[in-house]
């Protein structure tokens, strides 16, 4: 009986295993192999170059910027998206009815195309757009949003925040809904003031959901591509050059598939280490406050 169950288990798991082998493990091994070659994507022949791609990558401004830009995005994007999604979740939770309708509304940007959103923002920030004209003529502010290092990064981070807020709000709303109302009532009896409710009750009990959204939002910064590609191309002066942008540029603009694979491997290592460290910090934070 147990043997049959095992077989059935393997059968049900096989689509995922096959999918992972073909679309994850296979490409990963292939990418690792390519990272030691100078293959140019289309040439029938190539040579093994050892660790040359990795040493070259470490010395280029493109890769160095990709490394740091990711953390700069984190600093801007994570607090904004967390605050916005928490705000949305709290507001939606307090609604007397039609909660799911509002949540769907906030969730829609997550389903929308990053290309379309970027193009709309591009038009919105165009020199001759009504917004820019208003800022220039009425307030004397002539801002080149996509031409300044910080402003370009900020614009991309804001688009990302707009896109992800609804998704994270959904997770946080579920967390809020799972908090038993009796906890608040008991706390009130124990003398917890209304102004302390959020910090003393909601935040600790919401910690698992916040932990999830924080990990997801930190992780999202390692995969930024569409918005950067459409709006800034990684500029100005590498200010928005993400890992994905650098990999794309080297593989498909400069035809250096081997070198791009080396960068992809480096990006993966940076991502795993960063997420691991962030997880540990968040867990320590939770433990120190007695939330887990």
């Amino acid at each position, binding site marked *: 009986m147990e043997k049959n169950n095992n077989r059935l288990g393997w059968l049900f798991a096989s689509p995922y295993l096959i999918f992972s082998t073909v679309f994850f493990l296979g490409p990963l091994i292939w990418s690792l192999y390519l990272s030691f070659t100078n293959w140019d*994507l289309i040439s029938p022949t190539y040579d093994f170059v050892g660790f040359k791609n990795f040493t070259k990558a470490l010395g280029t401004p493109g890769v160095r910027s990709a490394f740091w830009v990711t953390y700069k995005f984190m600093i801007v994007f994570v607090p904004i998206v967390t605050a916005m999604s928490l705000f949305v979740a709290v507001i939606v939770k307090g609604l007397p009815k039609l909660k799911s309708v509002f949540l769907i509304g906030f969730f829609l940007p997550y389903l929308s195309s990053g290309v379309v959103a970027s193009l709309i923002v591009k038009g919105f920030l165009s*020199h001759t757009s009504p917004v820019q004209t208003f800022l220039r003529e009425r307030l004397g502010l002539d801002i080149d949003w996509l*031409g300044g290092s910080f402003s370009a990064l900020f614009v991309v981070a804001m688009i990302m925040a707009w896109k992800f807020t609804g998704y994270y709000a959904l997770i946080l709303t579920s967390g809020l809904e799972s908090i038993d109302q009796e906890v608040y009532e008991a706390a009130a009896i124990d003398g917890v003031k209304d102004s302390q409710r959020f910090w003393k009750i909601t935040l600790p009990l919401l910690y698992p959901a916040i932990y999830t959204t924080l990990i997801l939002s930190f992780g999202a910064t390692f995969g930024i591509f569409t918005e950067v590609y459409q709006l800034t*191309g990684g500029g100005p*002066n*590498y200010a928005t050059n993400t890992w994905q942008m650098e990999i794309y540029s080297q593989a*498909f603009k400069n*035809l250096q598939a081997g070198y791009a694979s080396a960068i992809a491997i480096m990006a993966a290592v940076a991502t795993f280490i960063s997420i691991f460290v962030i997880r540990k910090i968040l867990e320590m934070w939770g433990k120190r406050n007695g939330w887990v």
Partner: protein
Amino acid sequence: MKKKLAVLMSLTLVFTILAGCGSKSSNSGTSADGVTTIEFWAAPNPTQQAYWQKIAKEYETVNPKVKINVSAIKESPTSEASIQAAIAGGSAPTMTENISRGFAAQLANSKALVPLDTIAGFSDIVTKRNMTKTIEPWEFADGHQYVLPIYSNAMLFGWRTDILKEAGVNEVPRTYSEVIEATKKLKAKYPDKYLWAKPDLADPTSWKRWFDFFMLYNAASDGNKFIEGSQFVGDEKAGVDVLTFVDNLRKEKGLLSQNVTEPFENGVGVFTDVGPWTFSTWAEKYPELQYKENFEVSLPPVPDGMDPANAKTFADAKGIVIYASASPEQQAAAIEFIKWVYSDDQNDVAFFQETNLPPARDDVGTNEVFKPVFEKTPVLQEYAKAIPNAVPSMDNPKFNELQTFIGQEAFNKIVRGEIDPKTGWDNMKKAIEGELQ
């Protein structure tokens, strides 16, 4: 039984997935009834696509043993990337047009192209089409010809003479000091207008340098090659002059690199690079823009002391290539098709009429057959006249990285006022030489 079922299901899944992944065809392109099918990717420009579809249909009636499927190269993300992806995926077409010299060098370096001069009948095309001189600079370092140039645009700068006149500038500026003077007058009259308004000025994408830096640099250096083989041979004085000119325009608030929709057409800027393909768009979208009435075109401005009348400029020239992955039958059929197209001058006339792109021929300015085209669109005469002044792009396979450095290290930074011209030039030179090693 259950075990067999499980194995069968697993294998079905594997083969279904793998079948979806594999699309490589070993088809020779010739069917049992002897009809050879050619896949021809035309430039992603409606007029060029229409031209090739029409001409392919005509050829099929003359030669029923060949079927030509004409489709536009996908532009997402770029036509070059689409071609590269197709080659990498084993689904390259037989032939494509829209190939620049630099991109051809990349492809040739990867053994993706057929050296056209090794195919019988290629020299006949060159002779019959009267393009012996035009094709000379297209020879690659290995002595082969990989591209048959179709058109050659000597890129010119357009001037909004209507706005300039309102600002008190009655002649098109031809030297750097004249341009700066015109900028001062323009800003005095219209503080919200710019001499050169173009978001690309601050964009490091490599090909964008053809239409700003190289146009000015070719004029300032009298056509210096910039990179020859794997050597950087840039003319420092000319390069620094160009960057200083751009820097001076910035200081006069004459540059706008923010995103703005069609700034020249909408009058936000009064100066910009203009290719001959633009005029058919303007005829439809901006009919008020009329040559000699409110705009003119000219060769690039030159540093003071140089003769602006014969300034060199950038040649936006592109052509047809045949891919090495095509079967011998397809390659032979492709060259026969090209031979047939260029055996009749009227096909070049039709191309010129349809696309406004001057055919890459030695006699485009003198051959009477092109007269009706110039009569219909007089501004094209300026492009034909400038063909001898046009310098093609570099043929280095690393052109993409090299030209990106021009923007990243020098041009874009100058536009944003982040660096001085000499330092910009030095940084760019260092980066380029590092890449060439």
